[in-house]
Protein backbone atom coordinates (compact mmCIF):
# COMPACT_ATOMS: atom_id res chain seq x y z
CA UNK A 1 0.00 0.00 0.00
CA UNK A 2 1.38 3.39 -0.74
CA UNK A 3 0.28 6.30 1.34
CA UNK A 4 1.13 9.56 -0.35
CA UNK A 5 2.98 12.05 1.83
CA UNK A 6 1.41 14.86 -0.09
CA UNK A 7 2.87 18.31 0.34
CA UNK A 8 -0.57 19.91 0.43
CA UNK A 9 -0.88 18.61 3.99
CA UNK A 10 1.93 20.89 5.20
CA UNK A 11 -0.53 23.22 6.89
CA UNK A 12 -1.28 20.56 9.53
CA UNK A 13 2.34 20.86 10.59
CA UNK A 14 1.99 24.60 11.01
CA UNK A 15 -1.23 24.32 13.04
CA UNK A 16 0.22 21.60 15.27
CA UNK A 17 3.29 23.74 15.87
CA UNK A 18 1.27 26.82 16.73
CA UNK A 19 -1.72 25.32 18.58
CA UNK A 20 -1.02 21.68 19.50
CA UNK A 21 -2.47 18.26 18.72
CA UNK A 22 -6.19 18.81 19.25
CA UNK A 23 -6.36 21.88 16.98
CA UNK A 24 -4.37 20.24 14.18
CA UNK A 25 -6.36 17.01 14.32
CA UNK A 26 -9.60 18.97 14.28
CA UNK A 27 -8.55 20.66 11.05
CA UNK A 28 -7.28 17.42 9.53
CA UNK A 29 -10.52 15.71 10.43
CA UNK A 30 -12.68 18.48 8.98
CA UNK A 31 -10.74 18.35 5.70
CA UNK A 32 -10.40 14.59 5.26
CA UNK A 33 -12.96 12.68 7.35
CA UNK A 34 -15.82 14.97 8.36
CA UNK A 35 -18.53 13.05 10.23
CA UNK A 36 -16.48 9.83 10.24
CA UNK A 37 -14.20 8.48 12.99
CA UNK A 38 -10.84 7.67 11.38
CA UNK A 39 -9.55 4.22 12.35
CA UNK A 40 -6.11 2.66 12.31
CA UNK A 41 -5.25 -0.84 11.08
CA UNK A 42 -6.13 -2.35 14.49
CA UNK A 43 -9.52 -0.62 14.63
CA UNK A 44 -8.25 2.04 17.05
CA UNK A 45 -9.57 5.57 17.05
CA UNK A 46 -7.69 8.36 18.83
CA UNK A 47 -9.18 11.81 18.30
CA UNK A 48 -10.13 14.98 20.19
CA UNK A 49 -13.09 14.43 22.50
CA UNK A 50 -15.44 16.72 20.58
CA UNK A 51 -14.83 14.80 17.35
CA UNK A 52 -15.55 11.51 19.04
CA UNK A 53 -18.88 12.79 20.32
CA UNK A 54 -19.87 14.47 17.02
CA UNK A 55 -19.24 11.62 14.53
CA UNK A 56 -22.03 9.19 13.70
CA UNK A 57 -19.99 6.90 11.43
CA UNK A 58 -16.59 5.19 11.53
CA UNK A 59 -14.12 4.28 8.85
CA UNK A 60 -13.77 0.74 7.50
CA UNK A 61 -11.75 -0.60 4.55
CA UNK A 62 -15.07 -0.71 2.63
CA UNK A 63 -16.15 2.80 3.42
CA UNK A 64 -17.88 4.50 6.36
CA UNK A 65 -20.37 2.60 8.49
CA UNK A 66 -22.92 3.84 11.05
CA UNK A 67 -21.74 3.70 14.68
CA UNK A 68 -23.11 1.00 16.87
CA UNK A 69 -22.22 1.12 20.56
CA UNK A 70 -22.02 -2.64 20.80
CA UNK A 71 -18.92 -2.70 18.59
CA UNK A 72 -17.12 0.01 20.55
CA UNK A 73 -14.91 -0.11 23.58
CA UNK A 74 -13.50 3.02 25.22
CA UNK A 75 -9.81 2.65 25.99
CA UNK A 76 -9.53 4.69 29.15
CA UNK A 77 -7.62 7.82 29.95
CA UNK A 78 -7.51 11.06 28.07
CA UNK A 79 -4.19 12.47 26.86
CA UNK A 80 -3.92 16.08 25.80
CA UNK A 81 -7.68 16.28 25.18
CA UNK A 82 -7.79 13.14 23.01
CA UNK A 83 -9.82 10.00 23.67
CA UNK A 84 -9.26 6.45 22.47
CA UNK A 85 -11.68 3.73 21.37
CA UNK A 86 -11.44 0.36 19.75
CA UNK A 87 -14.15 -0.40 17.20
CA UNK A 88 -14.55 -3.94 15.97
CA UNK A 89 -14.35 -4.06 12.17
CA UNK A 90 -13.04 -0.51 11.83
CA UNK A 91 -9.96 0.12 9.73
CA UNK A 92 -8.37 2.52 7.27
CA UNK A 93 -9.70 3.06 3.80
CA UNK A 94 -7.12 2.34 1.12
CA UNK A 95 -5.25 5.47 0.09
CA UNK A 96 -6.96 7.65 2.72
CA UNK A 97 -5.35 10.95 3.60
CA UNK A 98 -5.64 10.58 7.41
CA UNK A 99 -2.44 8.55 8.15
CA UNK A 100 -0.14 10.89 6.26
CA UNK A 101 -1.95 13.89 7.77
CA UNK A 102 -1.29 12.44 11.22
CA UNK A 103 2.41 12.22 10.41
CA UNK A 104 2.44 15.90 9.45
CA UNK A 105 0.68 16.73 12.69
CA UNK A 106 3.32 14.81 14.63
CA UNK A 107 6.10 16.68 12.87
CA UNK A 108 4.58 20.00 13.93
CA UNK A 109 4.11 18.67 17.47
CA UNK A 110 7.74 17.58 17.69
CA UNK A 111 8.84 21.04 16.61
CA UNK A 112 6.49 22.60 19.14
CA UNK A 113 7.85 20.44 21.96
CA UNK A 114 11.46 21.10 21.08
CA UNK A 115 10.73 24.82 20.97
CA UNK A 116 9.12 24.61 24.41
CA UNK A 117 12.02 22.59 25.82
CA UNK A 118 14.45 25.17 24.48
CA UNK A 119 12.50 28.01 26.08
CA UNK A 120 12.30 26.09 29.36
CA UNK A 121 16.08 25.60 29.50
CA UNK A 122 16.85 29.13 28.42
CA UNK A 123 15.32 30.23 31.73
CA UNK A 124 16.97 27.68 34.00
CA UNK A 125 20.51 27.96 35.26
CA UNK A 126 23.31 25.80 36.53
CA UNK A 127 25.80 27.85 38.51
CA UNK A 128 24.79 31.06 36.73
CA UNK A 129 25.03 29.50 33.22
CA UNK A 130 21.80 29.06 31.25
CA UNK A 131 21.15 25.31 31.13
CA UNK A 132 20.54 25.66 27.39
CA UNK A 133 24.16 26.68 26.92
CA UNK A 134 25.72 23.63 28.56
CA UNK A 135 27.59 21.54 25.96
CA UNK A 136 25.90 18.25 26.88
CA UNK A 137 22.50 19.92 26.65
CA UNK A 138 23.42 21.37 23.26
CA UNK A 139 24.35 17.83 22.16
CA UNK A 140 20.87 16.55 23.04
CA UNK A 141 19.29 19.52 21.34
CA UNK A 142 21.31 18.77 18.22
CA UNK A 143 20.19 15.14 18.23
CA UNK A 144 16.57 16.23 18.48
CA UNK A 145 16.97 18.84 15.76
CA UNK A 146 18.56 16.15 13.57
CA UNK A 147 15.54 13.90 14.07
CA UNK A 148 13.20 16.67 13.01
CA UNK A 149 15.36 17.44 9.98
CA UNK A 150 15.32 13.78 8.95
CA UNK A 151 11.54 13.56 9.18
CA UNK A 152 11.12 16.79 7.22
CA UNK A 153 13.53 15.55 4.54
CA UNK A 154 11.60 12.31 4.20
CA UNK A 155 8.38 14.21 3.71
CA UNK A 156 10.04 16.23 0.98
CA UNK A 157 11.71 13.29 -0.75
CA UNK A 158 9.92 10.01 -0.56
CA UNK A 159 6.27 9.15 -0.83
CA UNK A 160 5.12 5.81 0.45
CA UNK A 161 4.62 3.88 3.63
CA UNK A 162 8.25 2.88 4.40
CA UNK A 163 9.00 6.59 4.63
CA UNK A 164 6.02 7.03 6.92
CA UNK A 165 7.41 4.37 9.24
CA UNK A 166 10.78 6.05 9.45
CA UNK A 167 9.17 9.44 9.96
CA UNK A 168 7.29 8.11 12.97
CA UNK A 169 10.40 6.45 14.43
CA UNK A 170 12.41 9.58 14.00
CA UNK A 171 9.70 11.67 15.66
CA UNK A 172 9.47 9.16 18.52
CA UNK A 173 13.19 9.70 19.14
CA UNK A 174 12.72 13.46 19.12
CA UNK A 175 9.90 13.11 21.66
CA UNK A 176 12.06 11.08 24.02
CA UNK A 177 14.92 13.56 23.72
CA UNK A 178 12.51 16.37 24.55
CA UNK A 179 11.44 14.47 27.66
CA UNK A 180 15.08 14.24 28.73
CA UNK A 181 15.52 17.93 28.08
CA UNK A 182 12.49 18.92 30.13
CA UNK A 183 13.70 17.12 33.26
CA UNK A 184 11.09 15.90 35.74
CA UNK A 185 8.55 18.46 34.47
CA UNK A 186 8.09 16.19 31.44
CA UNK A 187 7.21 13.29 33.73
CA UNK A 188 4.02 14.98 34.90
CA UNK A 189 0.79 13.78 33.31
CA UNK A 190 -0.14 17.23 32.05
CA UNK A 191 2.10 19.54 30.05
CA UNK A 192 4.82 18.39 27.67
CA UNK A 193 4.85 14.79 28.95
CA UNK A 194 1.15 14.40 28.15
CA UNK A 195 1.75 15.89 24.70
CA UNK A 196 4.58 13.45 23.95
CA UNK A 197 2.37 10.59 25.06
CA UNK A 198 -0.48 11.74 22.82
CA UNK A 199 1.89 12.02 19.88
CA UNK A 200 3.21 8.50 20.46
CA UNK A 201 -0.31 7.11 20.75
CA UNK A 202 -1.23 8.74 17.43
CA UNK A 203 1.61 6.81 15.81
CA UNK A 204 0.61 3.65 17.63
CA UNK A 205 -2.98 3.92 16.42
CA UNK A 206 -2.53 5.13 12.86
CA UNK A 207 0.79 3.97 11.40
CA UNK A 208 -0.04 1.76 8.41
CA UNK A 209 1.06 -1.84 8.80
CA UNK A 210 4.48 -2.40 7.34
CA UNK A 211 4.52 -4.79 4.37
CA UNK A 212 6.43 -7.95 5.43
CA UNK A 213 9.71 -8.34 3.58
CA UNK A 214 10.41 -11.75 2.14
CA UNK A 215 12.94 -13.87 4.00
CA UNK A 216 13.03 -11.57 6.99
Amino acid at each position, binding site marked *: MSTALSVDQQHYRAVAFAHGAAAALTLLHAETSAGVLPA*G*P*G*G*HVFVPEHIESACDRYETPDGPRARDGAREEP*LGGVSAGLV*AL*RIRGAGPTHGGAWPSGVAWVRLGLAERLLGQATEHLRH*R*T*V*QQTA*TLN*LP*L*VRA*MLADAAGGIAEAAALFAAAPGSPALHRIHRSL*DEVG*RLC*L*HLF*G*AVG*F*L*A*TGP*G*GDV*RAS*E*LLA*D*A*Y*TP*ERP*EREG*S
Partner: protein
Amino acid sequence: MMDFLDELRAFARESADVLRRTTLDIDRDPSLVDGVLGGALPWRHVGMPAEYYPDPPVVQGRPVYLDSCVEQVTVLEELARADAGAVLALPGPAMSGFVVAEIADQRQRERYYGMLAERPTWTFFGMTEPSHGSDPAGMATNVTGGLLNGVKRFVGNGARARIGVVFARRSAGPLGIAAVLVETDRPGFAGVPLETLGLRALALSELRMRDVPVEVGDLLGHHRSATRQGMWAAVRTFNRYRPVVACLALGVAQAAFDYVVDNRRLMRVAQRHVLDGFAERLHGARALVLAAARSADDDPGDGTLASAAKIRATALAEEITTAAVRFFGPGARWEHPLLDKWLRDARAFEFMEGTSNIQRLNLAQGYLNGRLGHAQAA
Protein backbone atom coordinates in the same frame (compact mmCIF):
# COMPACT_ATOMS: atom_id res chain seq x y z
CA MET B 1 25.04 -25.13 48.62
CA MET B 2 23.60 -22.48 46.31
CA ASP B 3 25.39 -19.14 46.35
CA PHE B 4 23.77 -16.82 48.93
CA LEU B 5 22.90 -14.07 46.43
CA ASP B 6 21.43 -16.60 44.00
CA GLU B 7 19.22 -18.00 46.73
CA LEU B 8 18.27 -14.52 47.89
CA ARG B 9 17.31 -13.66 44.31
CA ALA B 10 15.20 -16.82 44.01
CA PHE B 11 13.46 -16.01 47.30
CA ALA B 12 12.75 -12.46 46.13
CA ARG B 13 11.45 -13.69 42.78
CA GLU B 14 8.94 -15.90 44.52
CA SER B 15 7.89 -13.09 46.85
CA ALA B 16 7.34 -10.74 43.91
CA ASP B 17 4.30 -12.60 42.64
CA VAL B 18 1.94 -10.77 44.97
CA LEU B 19 2.95 -7.48 43.36
CA ARG B 20 2.02 -8.71 39.89
CA ARG B 21 -1.59 -9.12 40.86
CA THR B 22 -2.08 -5.51 41.82
CA THR B 23 0.24 -3.66 39.47
CA LEU B 24 -2.33 -2.36 36.98
CA ASP B 25 -4.87 -1.50 39.67
CA ILE B 26 -2.34 0.59 41.57
CA ASP B 27 -1.27 2.25 38.33
CA ARG B 28 -4.88 3.34 37.78
CA ASP B 29 -5.42 4.34 41.39
CA PRO B 30 -2.21 4.98 43.37
CA SER B 31 -4.15 5.43 46.60
CA LEU B 32 -4.64 1.64 46.65
CA VAL B 33 -0.99 1.31 47.68
CA ASP B 34 -1.82 1.65 51.38
CA GLY B 35 -4.31 -1.17 51.49
CA VAL B 36 -2.81 -3.50 48.94
CA LEU B 37 0.87 -3.57 49.83
CA GLY B 38 0.57 -3.72 53.62
CA GLY B 39 2.17 -6.98 54.73
CA ALA B 40 2.21 -8.46 51.23
CA LEU B 41 5.98 -8.91 51.11
CA PRO B 42 8.30 -10.72 53.52
CA TRP B 43 10.07 -7.40 54.16
CA ARG B 44 8.24 -4.89 56.30
CA HIS B 45 11.02 -2.35 55.84
CA VAL B 46 13.79 -1.75 53.35
CA GLY B 47 17.02 -0.61 54.96
CA MET B 48 16.12 -0.75 58.67
CA PRO B 49 19.09 -1.38 60.96
CA ALA B 50 19.04 -4.68 62.84
CA GLU B 51 18.31 -3.18 66.24
CA TYR B 52 14.97 -1.83 64.99
CA TYR B 53 13.97 -4.83 62.91
CA PRO B 54 13.65 -7.93 65.06
CA ASP B 55 12.03 -10.26 62.52
CA PRO B 56 13.54 -9.94 59.04
CA PRO B 57 13.22 -12.84 56.59
CA VAL B 58 16.02 -15.39 56.77
CA VAL B 59 17.83 -16.89 53.80
CA GLN B 60 20.42 -19.65 54.27
CA GLY B 61 20.27 -19.00 57.99
CA ARG B 62 21.15 -15.31 57.53
CA PRO B 63 18.79 -12.47 58.44
CA VAL B 64 18.23 -10.25 55.41
CA TYR B 65 17.71 -6.66 56.56
CA LEU B 66 18.21 -5.21 53.08
CA ASP B 67 20.63 -2.75 54.62
CA SER B 68 23.47 -3.30 52.15
CA CYS B 69 23.46 -2.12 48.57
CA VAL B 70 24.28 -5.62 47.30
CA GLU B 71 21.24 -7.13 49.04
CA GLN B 72 19.06 -4.28 47.84
CA VAL B 73 19.98 -4.53 44.15
CA THR B 74 19.51 -8.28 44.22
CA VAL B 75 16.09 -8.24 45.87
CA LEU B 76 14.68 -5.00 44.49
CA GLU B 77 15.44 -5.88 40.87
CA GLU B 78 13.32 -9.00 41.27
CA LEU B 79 10.49 -7.03 42.88
CA ALA B 80 10.77 -4.38 40.16
CA ARG B 81 10.22 -7.05 37.52
CA ALA B 82 6.72 -7.18 38.99
CA ASP B 83 6.20 -3.51 39.86
CA ALA B 84 8.94 -0.90 40.27
CA GLY B 85 6.41 1.69 41.41
CA ALA B 86 5.28 -0.54 44.26
CA VAL B 87 8.90 -1.10 45.31
CA LEU B 88 9.40 2.64 45.59
CA ALA B 89 6.12 2.95 47.46
CA LEU B 90 7.23 0.57 50.21
CA PRO B 91 7.28 2.21 53.60
CA GLY B 92 10.63 2.49 55.34
CA PRO B 93 13.87 4.44 55.40
CA ALA B 94 14.67 4.44 51.63
CA MET B 95 16.85 7.43 50.70
CA SER B 96 16.40 9.51 53.82
CA GLY B 97 17.60 6.49 55.80
CA PHE B 98 21.00 6.71 54.16
CA VAL B 99 21.37 10.28 55.37
CA VAL B 100 20.29 9.35 58.88
CA ALA B 101 22.62 6.35 58.92
CA GLU B 102 25.54 8.53 57.82
CA ILE B 103 25.28 11.55 60.07
CA ALA B 104 22.46 11.44 62.62
CA ASP B 105 23.30 11.56 66.33
CA GLN B 106 21.89 8.98 68.72
CA ARG B 107 18.76 10.98 69.59
CA GLN B 108 17.96 11.64 65.97
CA ARG B 109 18.43 7.96 65.12
CA GLU B 110 16.08 7.00 67.92
CA ARG B 111 13.51 9.56 66.82
CA TYR B 112 13.63 8.46 63.18
CA TYR B 113 13.94 4.70 63.44
CA GLY B 114 11.72 4.59 66.49
CA MET B 115 8.88 6.17 64.52
CA LEU B 116 9.45 3.80 61.59
CA ALA B 117 9.52 0.73 63.80
CA GLU B 118 6.17 1.62 65.43
CA ARG B 119 4.17 1.03 62.29
CA PRO B 120 4.84 1.08 58.53
CA THR B 121 5.83 4.66 57.82
CA TRP B 122 6.78 6.43 54.61
CA THR B 123 9.71 8.79 54.53
CA PHE B 124 10.99 11.32 52.00
CA PHE B 125 14.21 12.88 50.74
CA GLY B 126 13.60 16.48 49.72
CA MET B 127 16.32 18.00 47.58
CA THR B 128 14.89 19.09 44.19
CA GLU B 129 13.13 22.43 43.82
CA PRO B 130 10.95 23.84 41.03
CA SER B 131 13.86 25.95 39.76
CA HIS B 132 16.77 23.70 40.71
CA GLY B 133 17.10 19.99 40.02
CA SER B 134 20.51 19.10 38.65
CA ASP B 135 21.99 22.10 40.42
CA PRO B 136 21.08 21.67 44.10
CA ALA B 137 23.61 24.31 45.16
CA GLY B 138 21.16 26.85 43.74
CA MET B 139 18.44 25.85 46.20
CA ALA B 140 16.27 28.57 47.71
CA THR B 141 14.81 26.61 50.65
CA ASN B 142 16.37 27.98 53.81
CA VAL B 143 16.47 27.81 57.58
CA THR B 144 16.63 31.25 59.10
CA GLY B 145 15.90 32.17 62.69
CA GLY B 146 14.57 28.71 63.49
CA LEU B 147 12.09 28.70 60.59
CA LEU B 148 12.18 26.51 57.50
CA ASN B 149 10.84 28.04 54.28
CA GLY B 150 10.76 26.85 50.67
CA VAL B 151 9.26 24.46 48.13
CA LYS B 152 10.57 21.02 47.19
CA ARG B 153 9.23 19.34 44.09
CA PHE B 154 9.21 15.82 42.63
CA VAL B 155 9.72 14.24 46.03
CA GLY B 156 8.79 10.55 46.18
CA ASN B 157 6.17 9.57 48.81
CA GLY B 158 6.21 13.16 50.05
CA ALA B 159 2.47 13.55 50.52
CA ARG B 160 2.11 10.31 52.50
CA ALA B 161 5.31 10.46 54.56
CA ARG B 162 5.37 11.11 58.33
CA ILE B 163 9.01 12.10 58.50
CA GLY B 164 11.84 12.91 56.13
CA VAL B 165 14.90 14.98 55.33
CA VAL B 166 14.70 18.45 53.79
CA PHE B 167 17.87 20.03 52.42
CA ALA B 168 17.98 23.72 53.14
CA ARG B 169 20.46 26.53 53.05
CA ARG B 170 21.71 28.00 56.34
CA SER B 171 24.54 30.08 54.94
CA ALA B 172 26.32 30.78 51.64
CA GLY B 173 28.68 28.30 50.00
CA PRO B 174 28.80 24.53 49.58
CA LEU B 175 29.06 23.90 53.34
CA GLY B 176 26.03 26.06 54.02
CA ILE B 177 23.46 23.37 53.12
CA ALA B 178 21.93 21.49 56.03
CA ALA B 179 19.97 18.24 56.14
CA VAL B 180 16.95 18.88 58.35
CA LEU B 181 14.95 16.06 59.92
CA VAL B 182 11.26 17.05 59.92
CA GLU B 183 7.99 15.41 60.83
CA THR B 184 5.31 16.28 58.29
CA ASP B 185 2.68 17.19 60.90
CA ARG B 186 4.55 20.32 61.95
CA PRO B 187 2.71 23.59 61.46
CA GLY B 188 3.38 25.18 58.06
CA PHE B 189 4.29 21.90 56.33
CA ALA B 190 2.13 20.59 53.46
CA GLY B 191 2.66 17.68 51.03
CA VAL B 192 0.68 17.75 47.78
CA PRO B 193 0.66 14.80 45.35
CA LEU B 194 1.49 15.43 41.68
CA GLU B 195 -0.01 13.38 38.86
CA THR B 196 2.68 11.59 36.88
CA LEU B 197 2.78 9.51 33.71
CA GLY B 198 4.64 6.60 35.24
CA LEU B 199 5.68 5.10 38.58
CA ARG B 200 2.34 6.35 39.77
CA ALA B 201 2.48 4.30 42.97
CA LEU B 202 5.38 6.46 44.14
CA ALA B 203 3.11 9.47 44.70
CA LEU B 204 5.58 12.07 43.55
CA SER B 205 4.80 15.20 45.55
CA GLU B 206 5.44 18.83 46.16
CA LEU B 207 6.40 19.87 49.69
CA ARG B 208 5.48 23.39 50.74
CA MET B 209 7.10 24.77 53.87
CA ARG B 210 6.08 28.04 55.36
CA ASP B 211 7.66 29.09 58.66
CA VAL B 212 8.01 25.50 59.79
CA PRO B 213 9.65 25.62 63.23
CA VAL B 214 12.99 23.79 63.47
CA GLU B 215 15.56 23.45 66.24
CA VAL B 216 19.23 22.61 66.39
CA GLY B 217 18.25 19.04 67.27
CA ASP B 218 16.62 18.73 63.83
CA LEU B 219 19.84 19.48 61.96
CA LEU B 220 21.35 16.15 61.04
CA GLY B 221 25.07 15.96 61.73
CA HIS B 222 25.08 19.21 63.74
CA HIS B 223 27.56 17.54 66.11
CA ARG B 224 30.02 16.82 63.27
CA SER B 225 32.56 18.97 61.48
CA ALA B 226 31.13 21.37 58.88
CA THR B 227 32.60 19.33 56.01
CA ARG B 228 30.75 16.20 57.15
CA GLN B 229 27.17 17.43 57.17
CA GLY B 230 24.41 18.15 54.60
CA MET B 231 25.89 17.94 51.11
CA TRP B 232 28.53 15.46 52.17
CA ALA B 233 25.80 13.06 53.29
CA ALA B 234 23.70 13.80 50.20
CA VAL B 235 26.52 12.87 47.85
CA ARG B 236 27.13 9.61 49.70
CA THR B 237 23.40 8.91 49.62
CA PHE B 238 23.33 9.40 45.85
CA ASN B 239 26.33 7.12 45.45
CA ARG B 240 24.54 4.39 47.38
CA TYR B 241 21.11 4.88 45.89
CA ARG B 242 22.11 5.10 42.23
CA PRO B 243 22.83 1.35 41.98
CA VAL B 244 19.36 0.83 43.47
CA VAL B 245 17.74 3.05 40.83
CA ALA B 246 19.77 1.16 38.23
CA CYS B 247 18.48 -2.18 39.52
CA LEU B 248 14.89 -0.94 39.31
CA ALA B 249 15.47 0.14 35.71
CA LEU B 250 16.95 -3.26 35.03
CA GLY B 251 13.92 -4.97 36.56
CA VAL B 252 11.56 -3.02 34.30
CA ALA B 253 13.74 -3.79 31.27
CA GLN B 254 13.79 -7.49 32.10
CA ALA B 255 10.02 -7.54 32.62
CA ALA B 256 9.39 -6.06 29.17
CA PHE B 257 11.91 -8.43 27.59
CA ASP B 258 10.29 -11.47 29.23
CA TYR B 259 6.86 -10.31 28.15
CA VAL B 260 7.94 -10.24 24.51
CA VAL B 261 9.53 -13.68 24.76
CA ASP B 262 6.43 -15.15 26.44
CA ASN B 263 3.81 -13.54 24.25
CA ARG B 264 5.36 -13.32 20.83
CA ARG B 265 6.24 -16.86 19.84
CA LEU B 266 6.43 -16.40 16.08
CA MET B 267 9.20 -13.98 15.29
CA ARG B 268 11.02 -12.90 12.20
CA VAL B 269 14.77 -13.51 12.09
CA ALA B 270 15.49 -9.81 12.43
CA GLN B 271 13.31 -9.61 15.53
CA ARG B 272 15.10 -12.55 17.09
CA HIS B 273 18.42 -10.78 16.53
CA VAL B 274 17.09 -7.70 18.28
CA LEU B 275 16.06 -9.82 21.27
CA ASP B 276 19.41 -11.61 21.39
CA GLY B 277 21.15 -8.25 21.56
CA PHE B 278 18.90 -7.14 24.42
CA ALA B 279 19.49 -10.39 26.31
CA GLU B 280 23.24 -9.77 26.20
CA ARG B 281 22.86 -6.19 27.33
CA LEU B 282 20.62 -7.22 30.25
CA HIS B 283 23.31 -9.64 31.33
CA GLY B 284 25.99 -6.97 31.08
CA ALA B 285 23.94 -4.34 32.89
CA ARG B 286 23.18 -6.76 35.72
CA ALA B 287 26.89 -7.45 36.22
CA LEU B 288 27.60 -3.72 36.23
CA VAL B 289 24.82 -2.98 38.74
CA LEU B 290 26.18 -5.63 41.11
CA ALA B 291 29.72 -4.27 40.74
CA ALA B 292 28.41 -0.77 41.48
CA ALA B 293 26.55 -2.03 44.56
CA ARG B 294 29.71 -3.73 45.89
CA SER B 295 31.66 -0.56 45.31
CA ALA B 296 29.01 1.52 47.11
CA ASP B 297 29.08 -0.84 50.10
CA ASP B 298 32.90 -0.69 50.22
CA ASP B 299 33.25 3.06 49.74
CA PRO B 300 30.12 5.23 49.55
CA GLY B 301 32.42 8.16 48.86
CA ASP B 302 33.08 6.87 45.33
CA GLY B 303 30.14 7.00 42.93
CA THR B 304 31.99 6.23 39.70
CA LEU B 305 30.59 2.77 39.08
CA ALA B 306 27.19 3.84 40.41
CA SER B 307 27.02 6.45 37.65
CA ALA B 308 28.12 3.93 35.02
CA ALA B 309 25.45 1.46 36.17
CA LYS B 310 22.76 4.10 36.21
CA ILE B 311 23.51 5.39 32.73
CA ARG B 312 23.51 1.96 31.16
CA ALA B 313 20.56 0.42 32.99
CA THR B 314 18.40 3.48 32.38
CA ALA B 315 19.14 3.60 28.66
CA LEU B 316 18.46 -0.12 28.39
CA ALA B 317 15.12 0.20 30.17
CA GLU B 318 14.02 2.98 27.84
CA GLU B 319 15.17 1.13 24.74
CA ILE B 320 13.71 -2.27 25.61
CA THR B 321 10.34 -0.90 26.65
CA THR B 322 10.19 1.23 23.49
CA ALA B 323 11.16 -1.73 21.31
CA ALA B 324 8.85 -4.16 23.12
CA VAL B 325 5.61 -2.49 22.02
CA ARG B 326 6.83 -2.63 18.43
CA PHE B 327 6.89 -6.42 18.55
CA PHE B 328 3.11 -6.31 18.69
CA GLY B 329 0.58 -4.96 16.24
CA PRO B 330 -1.09 -1.57 15.91
CA GLY B 331 -2.45 -0.06 19.11
CA ALA B 332 -0.05 -2.15 21.20
CA ARG B 333 0.03 0.50 23.92
CA TRP B 334 -3.68 -0.14 24.53
CA GLU B 335 -3.72 -3.85 23.79
CA HIS B 336 -0.82 -4.63 26.15
CA PRO B 337 -1.35 -2.43 29.19
CA LEU B 338 1.58 -3.92 31.10
CA LEU B 339 3.95 -2.97 28.30
CA ASP B 340 2.48 0.50 28.27
CA LYS B 341 2.97 0.77 32.02
CA TRP B 342 6.57 -0.38 31.87
CA LEU B 343 7.26 2.05 29.07
CA ARG B 344 5.89 4.91 31.18
CA ASP B 345 7.69 3.70 34.31
CA ALA B 346 11.04 3.28 32.52
CA ARG B 347 11.18 6.98 31.76
CA ALA B 348 11.39 7.96 35.42
CA PHE B 349 14.84 6.53 35.97
CA GLU B 350 16.49 9.11 33.75
CA PHE B 351 15.75 11.74 36.40
CA MET B 352 16.02 9.92 39.72
CA GLU B 353 19.31 10.61 41.54
CA GLY B 354 20.53 12.78 38.71
CA THR B 355 20.07 12.70 34.95
CA SER B 356 22.30 10.76 32.57
CA ASN B 357 24.23 13.92 31.77
CA ILE B 358 25.07 14.36 35.44
CA GLN B 359 26.12 10.69 35.60
CA ARG B 360 28.30 11.20 32.51
CA LEU B 361 30.09 14.08 34.18
CA ASN B 362 30.69 11.93 37.31
CA LEU B 363 31.80 8.92 35.36
CA ALA B 364 34.22 10.84 33.18
CA GLN B 365 35.76 12.50 36.24
CA GLY B 366 35.96 9.21 38.10
CA TYR B 367 37.69 7.63 35.13
CA LEU B 368 40.19 10.47 34.90
CA ASN B 369 40.87 10.09 38.61
CA GLY B 370 41.74 6.43 38.02
CA ARG B 371 38.74 5.12 39.94
CA LEU B 372 37.70 2.49 37.44
CA GLY B 373 41.04 0.67 37.70
CA HIS B 374 43.21 0.24 34.65
CA ALA B 375 45.05 -2.64 33.07
CA GLN B 376 48.65 -2.43 34.28
CA ALA B 377 51.31 -2.05 31.63
CA ALA B 378 53.36 -5.28 31.46
